Protein backbone atom coordinates (compact mmCIF):
# COMPACT_ATOMS: atom_id res chain seq x y z
CA UNK A 1 0.00 0.00 0.00
CA UNK A 2 1.46 3.33 -1.10
CA UNK A 3 1.27 5.95 1.65
CA UNK A 4 0.59 9.56 0.76
CA UNK A 5 -0.24 12.87 2.37
CA UNK A 6 -3.17 15.11 1.60
CA UNK A 7 -4.69 18.52 2.24
CA UNK A 8 -8.40 18.56 2.83
CA UNK A 9 -11.29 20.96 3.22
CA UNK A 10 -13.74 19.98 5.95
CA UNK A 11 -17.28 21.24 6.27
CA UNK A 12 -18.38 20.34 9.75
CA UNK A 13 -21.63 20.89 11.62
CA UNK A 14 -21.12 23.08 14.68
CA UNK A 15 -23.80 23.49 17.31
CA UNK A 16 -23.14 24.84 20.79
CA UNK A 17 -25.78 22.84 22.59
CA UNK A 18 -29.18 21.24 22.35
CA UNK A 19 -30.98 24.58 22.45
CA UNK A 20 -28.97 26.52 19.93
CA UNK A 21 -29.15 26.54 16.16
CA UNK A 22 -26.21 25.02 14.38
CA UNK A 23 -24.44 25.76 11.13
CA UNK A 24 -21.60 24.47 8.98
CA UNK A 25 -18.06 25.70 9.46
CA UNK A 26 -15.25 25.17 7.00
CA UNK A 27 -11.78 24.08 8.08
CA UNK A 28 -8.56 23.24 6.30
CA UNK A 29 -6.26 20.43 7.39
CA UNK A 30 -2.82 19.93 5.90
CA UNK A 31 -0.45 17.05 5.52
CA UNK A 32 -2.83 14.31 6.61
CA UNK A 33 -1.29 10.84 6.28
CA UNK A 34 -3.23 8.19 4.41
CA UNK A 35 -2.40 5.86 7.31
CA UNK A 36 -4.43 7.88 9.81
CA UNK A 37 -7.87 6.87 10.88
CA UNK A 38 -10.65 9.35 10.23
CA UNK A 39 -10.88 10.19 13.93
CA UNK A 40 -7.13 10.70 14.14
CA UNK A 41 -7.55 13.29 11.40
CA UNK A 42 -10.15 14.91 13.69
CA UNK A 43 -7.62 14.77 16.54
CA UNK A 44 -5.17 16.69 14.36
CA UNK A 45 -7.81 19.27 13.52
CA UNK A 46 -8.83 19.65 17.17
CA UNK A 47 -5.24 20.11 18.31
CA UNK A 48 -4.87 22.79 15.68
CA UNK A 49 -8.09 24.50 16.80
CA UNK A 50 -7.02 24.51 20.45
CA UNK A 51 -3.63 25.98 19.60
CA UNK A 52 -5.39 28.64 17.51
CA UNK A 53 -7.54 29.51 20.52
CA UNK A 54 -10.73 28.09 19.04
CA UNK A 55 -13.06 25.52 20.43
CA UNK A 56 -12.42 21.94 19.32
CA UNK A 57 -15.17 19.89 17.70
CA UNK A 58 -17.08 17.61 20.04
CA UNK A 59 -17.66 14.11 18.69
CA UNK A 60 -18.51 10.75 20.26
CA UNK A 61 -15.90 8.00 20.18
CA UNK A 62 -14.49 5.49 22.60
CA UNK A 63 -13.11 2.07 21.70
CA UNK A 64 -11.82 3.08 18.25
CA UNK A 65 -11.91 -0.53 17.17
CA UNK A 66 -15.40 -0.72 15.72
CA UNK A 67 -17.28 -2.44 18.52
CA UNK A 68 -18.54 -0.01 21.17
CA UNK A 69 -20.89 1.79 18.78
CA UNK A 70 -20.14 5.21 20.18
CA UNK A 71 -18.75 6.92 17.06
CA UNK A 72 -21.40 8.41 14.85
CA UNK A 73 -20.51 10.68 11.96
CA UNK A 74 -22.39 11.17 8.73
CA UNK A 75 -19.52 11.57 6.29
CA UNK A 76 -20.07 12.84 2.76
CA UNK A 77 -23.67 11.75 2.88
CA UNK A 78 -23.12 8.31 4.40
CA UNK A 79 -23.40 7.08 7.97
CA UNK A 80 -19.85 6.05 9.01
CA UNK A 81 -18.54 7.14 5.61
CA UNK A 82 -17.80 5.42 2.33
CA UNK A 83 -16.53 1.97 3.36
CA UNK A 84 -18.98 -0.91 3.55
CA UNK A 85 -19.54 -2.66 6.91
CA UNK A 86 -17.38 -0.18 8.74
CA UNK A 87 -17.57 2.27 11.62
CA UNK A 88 -16.31 5.86 11.59
CA UNK A 89 -13.40 4.94 13.85
CA UNK A 90 -12.23 2.21 11.47
CA UNK A 91 -12.45 4.42 8.41
CA UNK A 92 -8.96 5.36 7.28
CA UNK A 93 -7.80 8.38 5.36
CA UNK A 94 -6.70 6.37 2.35
CA UNK A 95 -10.40 6.45 1.47
CA UNK A 96 -9.87 10.10 0.47
CA UNK A 97 -7.81 11.97 -2.09
CA UNK A 98 -5.70 15.09 -1.83
CA UNK A 99 -7.73 18.26 -2.23
CA UNK A 100 -11.06 16.64 -1.44
CA UNK A 101 -13.86 18.37 0.47
CA UNK A 102 -15.45 16.27 3.20
CA UNK A 103 -18.82 17.12 4.73
CA UNK A 104 -19.39 15.82 8.25
CA UNK A 105 -22.82 15.96 9.87
CA UNK A 106 -24.30 14.47 13.03
CA UNK A 107 -26.90 11.68 12.85
CA UNK A 108 -30.10 13.42 11.82
CA UNK A 109 -33.16 12.13 13.62
CA UNK A 110 -35.81 13.72 15.77
CA UNK A 111 -35.30 10.88 18.22
CA UNK A 112 -31.55 11.59 18.42
CA UNK A 113 -31.31 15.28 19.39
CA UNK A 114 -27.93 16.93 18.86
CA UNK A 115 -26.20 17.65 22.18
CA UNK A 116 -23.19 19.45 20.78
CA UNK A 117 -21.52 19.60 17.35
CA UNK A 118 -21.49 15.99 16.17
CA UNK A 119 -22.65 14.45 19.45
CA UNK A 120 -26.22 13.15 19.55
CA UNK A 121 -28.32 11.67 22.33
CA UNK A 122 -29.16 8.02 21.63
CA UNK A 123 -30.79 7.16 24.96
CA UNK A 124 -33.97 6.42 23.00
CA UNK A 125 -32.33 3.08 22.20
CA UNK A 126 -31.81 2.36 25.90
CA UNK A 127 -35.44 3.12 26.62
CA UNK A 128 -36.56 0.71 23.90
CA UNK A 129 -34.38 -2.01 25.45
CA UNK A 130 -35.84 -1.21 28.88
CA UNK A 131 -39.30 -2.19 27.70
CA UNK A 132 -38.34 -5.72 26.75
CA UNK A 133 -34.86 -6.22 25.32
CA UNK A 134 -33.98 -8.74 28.02
CA UNK A 135 -34.85 -12.11 29.43
CA UNK A 136 -36.24 -11.87 32.93
CA UNK A 137 -33.89 -14.14 34.80
CA UNK A 138 -32.61 -13.06 38.17
CA UNK A 139 -29.03 -13.89 39.01
CA UNK A 140 -28.63 -17.37 40.38
CA UNK A 141 -31.80 -18.74 38.81
CA UNK A 142 -30.23 -20.36 35.81
CA UNK A 143 -30.25 -24.04 34.95
CA UNK A 144 -27.08 -25.68 33.67
CA UNK A 145 -25.89 -24.00 30.50
CA UNK A 146 -26.11 -27.24 28.54
CA UNK A 147 -29.54 -28.25 29.88
CA UNK A 148 -31.29 -26.83 26.81
CA UNK A 149 -29.60 -27.71 23.51
CA UNK A 150 -30.10 -25.04 20.86
CA UNK A 151 -30.11 -25.73 17.13
CA UNK A 152 -26.79 -24.37 15.89
CA UNK A 153 -28.55 -22.64 13.01
CA UNK A 154 -30.75 -20.68 15.39
CA UNK A 155 -27.86 -20.00 17.76
CA UNK A 156 -25.75 -18.65 14.90
CA UNK A 157 -28.60 -16.53 13.61
CA UNK A 158 -29.26 -15.19 17.11
CA UNK A 159 -25.58 -14.31 17.32
CA UNK A 160 -25.68 -12.49 13.99
CA UNK A 161 -28.62 -10.41 15.20
CA UNK A 162 -26.92 -9.84 18.56
CA UNK A 163 -23.79 -8.44 16.92
CA UNK A 164 -25.61 -5.10 16.54
CA UNK A 165 -23.49 -2.40 18.18
CA UNK A 166 -26.38 0.04 18.72
CA UNK A 167 -24.64 2.89 16.89
CA UNK A 168 -27.80 4.17 15.21
CA UNK A 169 -26.43 4.19 11.64
CA UNK A 170 -29.67 2.48 10.54
CA UNK A 171 -31.73 5.37 11.86
CA UNK A 172 -29.29 7.89 10.42
CA UNK A 173 -29.44 6.26 6.99
CA UNK A 174 -33.13 5.39 6.69
CA UNK A 175 -34.99 7.86 4.52
CA UNK A 176 -37.73 7.72 7.17
CA UNK A 177 -35.47 7.73 10.24
CA UNK A 178 -36.81 4.33 11.25
CA UNK A 179 -35.24 2.31 14.07
CA UNK A 180 -36.69 -1.00 13.00
CA UNK A 181 -33.36 -2.62 12.15
CA UNK A 182 -32.08 -1.95 15.66
CA UNK A 183 -35.27 -3.03 17.42
CA UNK A 184 -35.73 -6.10 15.24
CA UNK A 185 -32.15 -7.26 15.82
CA UNK A 186 -32.75 -7.47 19.57
CA UNK A 187 -36.22 -9.00 19.13
CA UNK A 188 -34.81 -11.58 16.72
CA UNK A 189 -31.96 -12.57 18.99
CA UNK A 190 -34.33 -13.28 21.85
CA UNK A 191 -37.05 -14.82 19.66
CA UNK A 192 -34.59 -17.31 18.19
CA UNK A 193 -33.51 -18.65 21.57
CA UNK A 194 -35.65 -20.94 23.73
CA UNK A 195 -34.74 -18.85 26.78
CA UNK A 196 -36.58 -15.92 25.22
CA UNK A 197 -39.82 -17.79 24.61
CA UNK A 198 -41.78 -17.00 27.80
CA UNK A 199 -41.76 -13.23 27.17
CA UNK A 200 -41.84 -13.36 23.42
CA UNK A 201 -45.22 -11.71 22.95
CA UNK A 202 -45.05 -8.95 25.53
CA UNK A 203 -41.53 -8.19 24.34
CA UNK A 204 -42.62 -7.61 20.76
CA UNK A 205 -45.59 -5.45 21.75
CA UNK A 206 -43.74 -3.36 24.32
CA UNK A 207 -40.60 -2.72 22.32
CA UNK A 208 -42.53 -1.68 19.22
CA UNK A 209 -44.78 0.58 21.33
CA UNK A 210 -41.76 2.30 22.87
CA UNK A 211 -40.07 2.62 19.48
CA UNK A 212 -43.16 4.44 18.20
CA UNK A 213 -43.31 6.64 21.27
CA UNK A 214 -39.73 7.79 20.72
CA UNK A 215 -40.73 9.30 17.41
CA UNK A 216 -38.76 7.13 15.04
CA UNK A 217 -40.06 6.94 11.48
CA UNK A 218 -41.66 3.99 9.85
CA UNK A 219 -40.00 1.25 7.85
CA UNK A 220 -40.94 1.30 4.19
CA UNK A 221 -38.68 -1.62 3.27
CA UNK A 222 -36.10 0.28 1.27
CA UNK A 223 -33.33 -1.81 2.91
CA UNK A 224 -30.84 1.06 2.98
CA UNK A 225 -30.26 0.30 6.68
CA UNK A 226 -28.90 -3.14 5.90
CA UNK A 227 -26.58 -1.74 3.23
CA UNK A 228 -25.17 0.85 5.66
CA UNK A 229 -25.06 -1.20 8.87
CA UNK A 230 -21.45 -1.55 10.06
CA UNK A 231 -22.21 -5.07 11.24
CA UNK A 232 -24.30 -6.11 8.24
CA UNK A 233 -27.44 -6.83 10.29
CA UNK A 234 -29.99 -8.34 7.90
CA UNK A 235 -33.44 -6.93 7.14
CA UNK A 236 -34.70 -10.50 7.53
CA UNK A 237 -34.79 -9.47 11.20
CA UNK A 238 -37.37 -6.80 10.39
CA UNK A 239 -39.51 -9.42 8.70
CA UNK A 240 -39.18 -11.56 11.81
CA UNK A 241 -40.19 -8.63 14.00
CA UNK A 242 -43.26 -8.04 11.83
CA UNK A 243 -44.15 -11.70 12.26
CA UNK A 244 -43.63 -11.56 16.00
CA UNK A 245 -45.75 -8.44 16.26
CA UNK A 246 -48.51 -9.86 14.09
CA UNK A 247 -48.80 -13.03 16.08
CA UNK A 248 -48.46 -11.23 19.41
CA UNK A 249 -50.90 -8.48 18.48
CA UNK A 250 -53.56 -10.62 16.86
CA UNK A 251 -52.90 -14.00 18.39
CA UNK A 252 -53.17 -13.14 22.03
CA UNK A 253 -56.09 -11.98 24.11
CA UNK A 254 -54.22 -9.23 25.81
Amino acid at each position, binding site marked *: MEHYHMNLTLKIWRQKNNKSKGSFETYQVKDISSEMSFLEMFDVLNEQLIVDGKEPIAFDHDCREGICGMCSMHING*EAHGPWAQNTTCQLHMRAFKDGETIVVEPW*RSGAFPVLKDLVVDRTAFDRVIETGGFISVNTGNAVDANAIPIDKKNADEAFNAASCIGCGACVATCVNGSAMLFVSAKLSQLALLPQGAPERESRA*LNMVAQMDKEGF*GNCTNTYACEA*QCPKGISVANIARM*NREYLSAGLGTEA
Partner: protein
Amino acid sequence: MHFQFRTFVTPNIHYNILYMTWKLFFTSSIGKKITMGATGLFLISFLVIHALLNSMIFYNDGGETFNHWGHFMGSNLIIRTMEIGLMAFLLLHIVQGLKLWKQNTAARPVKYMVSKADSKSKWYSKSMGLLGTLILIFLIMHFYHFWVPSRFGGMFNVQALGEATLGQEYNNQTVHNLYQEMLNVFGRNLMVVIVYVLGCFSLCWHLLHGFQSAFQTFGVSHKKYTPIIKTIGVVYSVGISLLFASMPVAMYLGWVK
Protein backbone atom coordinates in the same frame (compact mmCIF):
# COMPACT_ATOMS: atom_id res chain seq x y z
CA MET B 1 -49.61 8.35 20.50
CA HIS B 2 -51.15 7.01 23.69
CA PHE B 3 -50.92 3.51 25.01
CA GLN B 4 -52.83 1.95 27.79
CA PHE B 5 -50.77 0.01 30.25
CA ARG B 6 -51.96 -2.63 32.63
CA THR B 7 -49.65 -2.90 35.57
CA PHE B 8 -49.06 -6.14 37.38
CA VAL B 9 -47.42 -5.79 40.72
CA THR B 10 -45.77 -8.70 42.45
CA PRO B 11 -43.89 -8.20 45.72
CA ASN B 12 -40.62 -7.39 44.05
CA ILE B 13 -41.28 -6.98 40.37
CA HIS B 14 -43.83 -5.14 38.34
CA TYR B 15 -44.22 -5.35 34.64
CA ASN B 16 -45.91 -3.11 32.16
CA ILE B 17 -47.76 -5.25 29.71
CA LEU B 18 -49.35 -3.59 26.76
CA TYR B 19 -53.05 -4.30 26.40
CA MET B 20 -53.45 -4.73 22.70
CA THR B 21 -56.71 -3.33 21.39
CA TRP B 22 -57.61 -3.33 17.70
CA LYS B 23 -57.09 0.39 17.63
CA LEU B 24 -53.64 0.16 19.18
CA PHE B 25 -52.70 -2.58 16.81
CA PHE B 26 -53.65 -0.70 13.68
CA THR B 27 -52.27 2.64 14.78
CA SER B 28 -48.86 1.22 15.71
CA SER B 29 -46.03 1.52 13.23
CA ILE B 30 -46.12 -2.13 12.26
CA GLY B 31 -49.94 -2.13 12.28
CA LYS B 32 -49.86 0.68 9.74
CA LYS B 33 -47.41 -1.25 7.62
CA ILE B 34 -49.66 -4.27 7.76
CA THR B 35 -52.65 -2.20 6.70
CA MET B 36 -50.65 -0.85 3.79
CA GLY B 37 -49.50 -4.31 2.80
CA ALA B 38 -52.90 -5.95 3.14
CA THR B 39 -54.82 -3.28 1.25
CA GLY B 40 -52.00 -3.16 -1.30
CA LEU B 41 -52.22 -6.89 -1.93
CA PHE B 42 -55.99 -6.63 -2.29
CA LEU B 43 -55.58 -3.85 -4.84
CA ILE B 44 -52.98 -5.97 -6.62
CA SER B 45 -55.45 -8.82 -6.91
CA PHE B 46 -58.10 -6.39 -8.15
CA LEU B 47 -55.74 -5.19 -10.86
CA VAL B 48 -55.49 -8.75 -12.16
CA ILE B 49 -59.27 -8.93 -12.69
CA HIS B 50 -59.36 -5.42 -14.08
CA ALA B 51 -56.62 -6.15 -16.58
CA LEU B 52 -58.09 -9.48 -17.63
CA LEU B 53 -61.51 -8.01 -18.29
CA ASN B 54 -60.11 -5.00 -20.13
CA SER B 55 -58.06 -7.34 -22.30
CA MET B 56 -61.36 -8.38 -23.86
CA ILE B 57 -60.98 -5.34 -26.10
CA PHE B 58 -58.27 -7.25 -27.90
CA TYR B 59 -60.94 -9.59 -29.29
CA ASN B 60 -61.41 -6.62 -31.58
CA ASP B 61 -65.09 -7.52 -31.94
CA GLY B 62 -66.44 -4.03 -31.66
CA GLY B 63 -66.53 -4.37 -27.90
CA GLU B 64 -69.09 -7.14 -27.64
CA THR B 65 -67.17 -9.44 -25.32
CA PHE B 66 -65.81 -6.52 -23.37
CA ASN B 67 -69.19 -4.90 -22.87
CA HIS B 68 -70.72 -8.20 -21.84
CA TRP B 69 -68.23 -8.70 -19.05
CA GLY B 70 -68.38 -5.04 -18.19
CA HIS B 71 -72.09 -5.48 -17.70
CA PHE B 72 -71.57 -8.60 -15.65
CA MET B 73 -69.21 -6.77 -13.34
CA GLY B 74 -71.56 -3.80 -13.11
CA SER B 75 -74.67 -5.80 -12.32
CA ASN B 76 -73.51 -8.72 -10.20
CA LEU B 77 -74.49 -8.12 -6.59
CA ILE B 78 -71.43 -9.85 -5.13
CA ILE B 79 -69.08 -7.88 -7.32
CA ARG B 80 -70.88 -4.63 -6.54
CA THR B 81 -70.57 -5.37 -2.85
CA MET B 82 -66.90 -6.11 -3.28
CA GLU B 83 -66.54 -2.84 -5.09
CA ILE B 84 -67.52 -1.02 -1.92
CA GLY B 85 -64.76 -2.95 -0.15
CA LEU B 86 -62.38 -2.06 -2.91
CA MET B 87 -63.13 1.61 -2.58
CA ALA B 88 -62.80 1.42 1.17
CA PHE B 89 -59.44 -0.35 0.90
CA LEU B 90 -58.23 2.12 -1.67
CA LEU B 91 -59.18 4.95 0.65
CA LEU B 92 -57.51 3.22 3.60
CA HIS B 93 -54.38 2.67 1.53
CA ILE B 94 -54.32 6.37 0.69
CA VAL B 95 -55.07 7.61 4.18
CA GLN B 96 -52.50 5.33 5.86
CA GLY B 97 -50.00 6.27 3.18
CA LEU B 98 -50.49 9.95 3.96
CA LYS B 99 -50.17 9.29 7.68
CA LEU B 100 -46.96 7.35 7.14
CA TRP B 101 -45.61 10.13 4.98
CA LYS B 102 -46.37 12.63 7.72
CA GLN B 103 -44.82 10.51 10.47
CA ASN B 104 -41.75 9.77 8.40
CA THR B 105 -41.17 13.38 7.45
CA ALA B 106 -41.48 14.39 11.10
CA ALA B 107 -38.91 11.79 12.14
CA ARG B 108 -36.14 13.86 10.56
CA PRO B 109 -36.84 17.51 11.31
CA VAL B 110 -33.37 18.64 10.20
CA LYS B 111 -32.32 17.25 6.84
CA TYR B 112 -28.83 16.29 5.75
CA MET B 113 -26.88 18.68 3.62
CA VAL B 114 -25.39 15.75 1.74
CA SER B 115 -27.09 12.40 1.48
CA LYS B 116 -26.01 9.43 -0.54
CA ALA B 117 -28.74 7.20 0.81
CA ASP B 118 -29.92 7.01 -2.81
CA SER B 119 -27.11 4.68 -3.70
CA LYS B 120 -28.12 2.28 -0.93
CA SER B 121 -31.63 1.49 -2.11
CA LYS B 122 -33.87 1.76 -5.18
CA TRP B 123 -35.17 5.23 -5.92
CA TYR B 124 -38.71 3.98 -6.34
CA SER B 125 -38.60 2.29 -2.92
CA LYS B 126 -38.04 5.70 -1.43
CA SER B 127 -40.56 7.43 -3.69
CA MET B 128 -43.65 5.41 -2.88
CA GLY B 129 -45.42 8.51 -1.65
CA LEU B 130 -44.63 10.44 -4.80
CA LEU B 131 -45.55 7.54 -7.06
CA GLY B 132 -48.72 7.00 -5.06
CA THR B 133 -49.64 10.65 -5.49
CA LEU B 134 -49.08 10.44 -9.24
CA ILE B 135 -51.25 7.35 -9.36
CA LEU B 136 -53.90 9.15 -7.32
CA ILE B 137 -53.96 12.04 -9.78
CA PHE B 138 -54.20 9.55 -12.59
CA LEU B 139 -57.00 7.74 -10.80
CA ILE B 140 -59.07 10.89 -10.47
CA MET B 141 -58.89 11.30 -14.20
CA HIS B 142 -59.54 7.64 -14.74
CA PHE B 143 -62.64 7.72 -12.52
CA TYR B 144 -63.84 10.83 -14.29
CA HIS B 145 -63.53 9.04 -17.61
CA PHE B 146 -65.09 5.71 -16.76
CA TRP B 147 -66.24 4.97 -13.27
CA VAL B 148 -68.35 8.06 -12.64
CA PRO B 149 -70.28 7.90 -15.94
CA SER B 150 -70.89 4.20 -15.57
CA ARG B 151 -72.09 4.46 -11.99
CA PHE B 152 -73.67 7.85 -11.73
CA GLY B 153 -74.63 8.65 -15.29
CA GLY B 154 -74.68 12.35 -15.94
CA MET B 155 -73.42 13.56 -12.60
CA PHE B 156 -70.62 16.11 -12.28
CA ASN B 157 -71.06 17.38 -15.81
CA VAL B 158 -70.14 14.03 -17.16
CA GLN B 159 -71.77 12.80 -20.30
CA ALA B 160 -73.87 9.72 -19.57
CA LEU B 161 -72.71 6.52 -21.20
CA GLY B 162 -74.35 5.45 -24.37
CA GLU B 163 -75.91 2.03 -24.71
CA ALA B 164 -75.11 -0.93 -26.88
CA THR B 165 -77.07 -4.01 -27.79
CA LEU B 166 -75.02 -7.17 -27.73
CA GLY B 167 -75.29 -9.97 -30.29
CA GLN B 168 -77.08 -13.31 -30.07
CA GLU B 169 -74.20 -14.91 -28.27
CA TYR B 170 -75.05 -12.65 -25.33
CA ASN B 171 -78.84 -12.95 -25.55
CA ASN B 172 -79.14 -9.56 -27.22
CA GLN B 173 -78.84 -7.71 -23.89
CA THR B 174 -78.67 -3.95 -23.80
CA VAL B 175 -75.73 -2.66 -21.74
CA HIS B 176 -73.68 0.49 -21.06
CA ASN B 177 -71.36 1.01 -23.97
CA LEU B 178 -68.13 1.24 -22.02
CA TYR B 179 -66.23 0.23 -25.09
CA GLN B 180 -67.40 3.25 -26.98
CA GLU B 181 -66.40 5.38 -24.01
CA MET B 182 -62.88 3.96 -24.23
CA LEU B 183 -62.74 4.75 -27.91
CA ASN B 184 -64.01 8.24 -27.18
CA VAL B 185 -61.37 8.84 -24.56
CA PHE B 186 -58.37 7.23 -26.20
CA GLY B 187 -59.15 7.37 -29.89
CA ARG B 188 -58.61 11.07 -30.48
CA ASN B 189 -56.70 12.68 -27.67
CA LEU B 190 -52.94 12.07 -27.69
CA MET B 191 -52.47 13.96 -24.41
CA VAL B 192 -54.84 11.62 -22.60
CA VAL B 193 -53.03 8.61 -24.00
CA ILE B 194 -49.69 9.97 -22.84
CA VAL B 195 -51.02 10.68 -19.36
CA TYR B 196 -52.44 7.15 -19.15
CA VAL B 197 -49.15 5.62 -20.24
CA LEU B 198 -47.29 7.72 -17.66
CA GLY B 199 -49.84 6.60 -15.08
CA CYS B 200 -48.98 3.02 -15.96
CA PHE B 201 -45.27 3.77 -15.50
CA SER B 202 -45.98 5.13 -12.02
CA LEU B 203 -48.02 2.05 -11.29
CA CYS B 204 -45.20 -0.19 -12.47
CA TRP B 205 -42.66 1.36 -10.12
CA HIS B 206 -45.14 1.53 -7.28
CA LEU B 207 -45.79 -2.19 -7.70
CA LEU B 208 -42.13 -3.10 -8.16
CA HIS B 209 -41.56 -2.00 -4.60
CA GLY B 210 -45.02 -2.66 -3.19
CA PHE B 211 -45.37 -6.27 -4.22
CA GLN B 212 -42.28 -7.65 -2.48
CA SER B 213 -42.54 -5.08 0.31
CA ALA B 214 -45.96 -6.41 1.32
CA PHE B 215 -44.49 -9.85 1.85
CA GLN B 216 -41.63 -8.49 3.95
CA THR B 217 -44.24 -6.65 6.03
CA PHE B 218 -46.15 -9.86 6.62
CA GLY B 219 -42.91 -11.34 7.83
CA VAL B 220 -42.23 -13.55 4.85
CA SER B 221 -38.48 -13.66 4.56
CA HIS B 222 -37.09 -16.95 3.41
CA LYS B 223 -33.96 -17.99 1.59
CA LYS B 224 -35.88 -20.24 -0.79
CA TYR B 225 -39.17 -18.43 -1.24
CA THR B 226 -38.28 -14.77 -1.10
CA PRO B 227 -36.35 -14.80 -4.41
CA ILE B 228 -39.37 -16.45 -6.07
CA ILE B 229 -41.71 -13.84 -4.62
CA LYS B 230 -39.41 -11.10 -5.82
CA THR B 231 -39.31 -12.55 -9.35
CA ILE B 232 -43.07 -12.90 -9.46
CA GLY B 233 -43.32 -9.31 -8.25
CA VAL B 234 -41.18 -8.00 -11.08
CA VAL B 235 -42.97 -10.05 -13.74
CA TYR B 236 -46.34 -8.99 -12.39
CA SER B 237 -45.50 -5.31 -12.07
CA VAL B 238 -43.99 -4.97 -15.50
CA GLY B 239 -46.54 -7.29 -17.13
CA ILE B 240 -49.66 -5.69 -15.77
CA SER B 241 -48.45 -2.16 -16.40
CA LEU B 242 -47.52 -2.97 -20.00
CA LEU B 243 -50.88 -4.62 -20.52
CA PHE B 244 -52.74 -1.59 -19.23
CA ALA B 245 -50.57 0.82 -21.18
CA SER B 246 -51.10 -1.12 -24.38
CA MET B 247 -54.85 -0.45 -24.29
CA PRO B 248 -54.98 3.31 -24.85
CA VAL B 249 -52.05 3.00 -27.26
CA ALA B 250 -53.81 0.29 -29.28
CA MET B 251 -56.97 2.37 -29.47
CA TYR B 252 -55.17 5.57 -30.37
CA LEU B 253 -53.25 3.86 -33.13
CA GLY B 254 -56.39 2.20 -34.36
CA TRP B 255 -55.24 -1.38 -33.79
CA VAL B 256 -58.40 -1.90 -31.84
CA LYS B 257 -61.48 -0.36 -33.36
